[in-house]
């Protein structure tokens, strides 16, 4: 009997503690923000779609060395890269080298062993974000850290084409 009563009194006290906690929370500032008027600041850890990083000296030109590892490793096949060998002035005349899933990459493996340093110029670096699963393998495997996650939280579009990005153009805009 006494045990029951003391148990109930302890329970009642815990109810008062509960009220105290919510009462305190009532007077604390809000944790949420009014989105269209304010935006969150701590986006450092946000993983948006990928984007290119520019060279330190020349932020318009990507660090990319066109090795094609990203396109190769991408499980969804959403990266599309084309480049040409530098020096051949008229780039429209030269044959574009395409890297991607299902495309034989001429310079990887035993098929092509460069004997001297070959300067390449990037023509196209496209991302089809519709297919991307944000696994991050491309970012992990880039040897020169040319790919990073963008901080584009507020993405919205009306069609599928809105999510097909020309990353090279985007970099030039950002630079």
């Amino acid at each position, binding site marked *: 009997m006494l045990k029951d009563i003391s148990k109930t009194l302890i329970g009642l006290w815990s109810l008062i503690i509960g009220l105290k906690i*919510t009462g305190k*929370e*009532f007077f604390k500032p809000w944790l949420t923000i009014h989105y269209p008027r304010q935006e969150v600041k701590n986006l450092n850890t946000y993983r948006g779609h990928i984007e290119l990083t520019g060279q330190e000296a020349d932020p318009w030109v990507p660090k990319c060395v066109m090795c094609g590892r990203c396109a190769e490793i991408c499980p969804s096949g959403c990266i599309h890269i084309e480049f040409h060998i530098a020096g051949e002035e008229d780039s429209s005349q030269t044959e574009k080298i395409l890297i991607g899933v299902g495309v034989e990459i001429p310079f990887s493996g035993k098929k092509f062993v460069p004997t001297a340093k070959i300067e390449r110029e990037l023509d196209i670096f496209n991302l089809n974000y519709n297919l991307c699963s944000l696994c991050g393998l491309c970012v992990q495997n880039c040897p020169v850290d040319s790919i990073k996650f963008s901080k584009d939280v507020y993405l919205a579009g009306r069609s599928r084409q809105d999510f097909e990005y020309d990353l090279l153009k985007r970099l030039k805009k950002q630079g």
Partner: protein
Amino acid sequence: MINFLYNFLSIPLVHIIVALVAILAFIGLNGVVLVYMERKVAGFIQRRPGPYEVGPQGLLQPVADALKLLGKQLTSPMGADKILFWSAPIISFAPVVVCFLPIPFGPSQNSTGMELNLGLLLVLAFSGINVFALCMTGWGSNNKYSLLGAARAVSQSVAYEIPLLLAVLSIAFQTGSLNLSEIVSSQQGVIHWNIFMQPLAFIIYFISATAETNRAPFDLPEAESELTAGFHTEYSGMTFGLFFLAEYAYMIVVCSVATALFLGGWDGPFFDGFWWFLFKVYSLMLVLMWFRWTYPRVRFDQLLNICWKWLIPLSVLNLILTAFFYKTGTLKC
């Protein structure tokens, strides 16, 4: 002119009609205010702003909600008992208007809708009709959730009416009256408020009132996570709106009765008047909301255990002690 109006108002029939109209206006306005208040309290306790976009600080949100409810189509489910289904919201809402009549909002004669010797009894009797309406919704909706909700509502209300009545009765023993105005005027001065004389009765009353009005943590009849919306699952538009209004009005009634019985009604430390009454009522409402956003819902057996094993024995004890002390003359009225 003012004199004429005053005389006109003192004709009993005119007085009651004016009072009823004023009460209806008060209930409507009150619904709007309380919806806003509830959502803001919920927001602040969860550290978010609550309604914010409609009007300044979201003040027009309840109006928008009300307009939405008014515009909705009224439907009844297939196989429902039409008469029970459509009359239930009205039966739920109508008696609450009567409950406001004997409540003394202020010191003047005109601030009470109708002076009644058995005012307290009238409030308790008419608030009981709500259970009947819930019962009708449960049977009339032809829906298992409604039926379960109604069954819960009935057993809960029947159980909690007992400690509620016993707690109220101990105040009636003490003051020797069931007239709310008399009870209020018997506790002039903060020290004479009944809450200091009968703290246990107040606690019992307040817990039972929470359960009677189906408020969290005793909101089993409309437990969202178990019964979708409980007894009003099938109601849409303004039929649901009526239940909603009635629920908030009943909350105001129980808080008003608590104010009149235990907190001295319109009596305050200074400047007696209806503002003190409203202040106390809305403070109690705030406490009810505070409860709702603090405690999780109790289980049904726990609910009944609290009532039958604790509240009823305690309230009987409280009543016996009150009777003993006042009969033997140890304490004076």
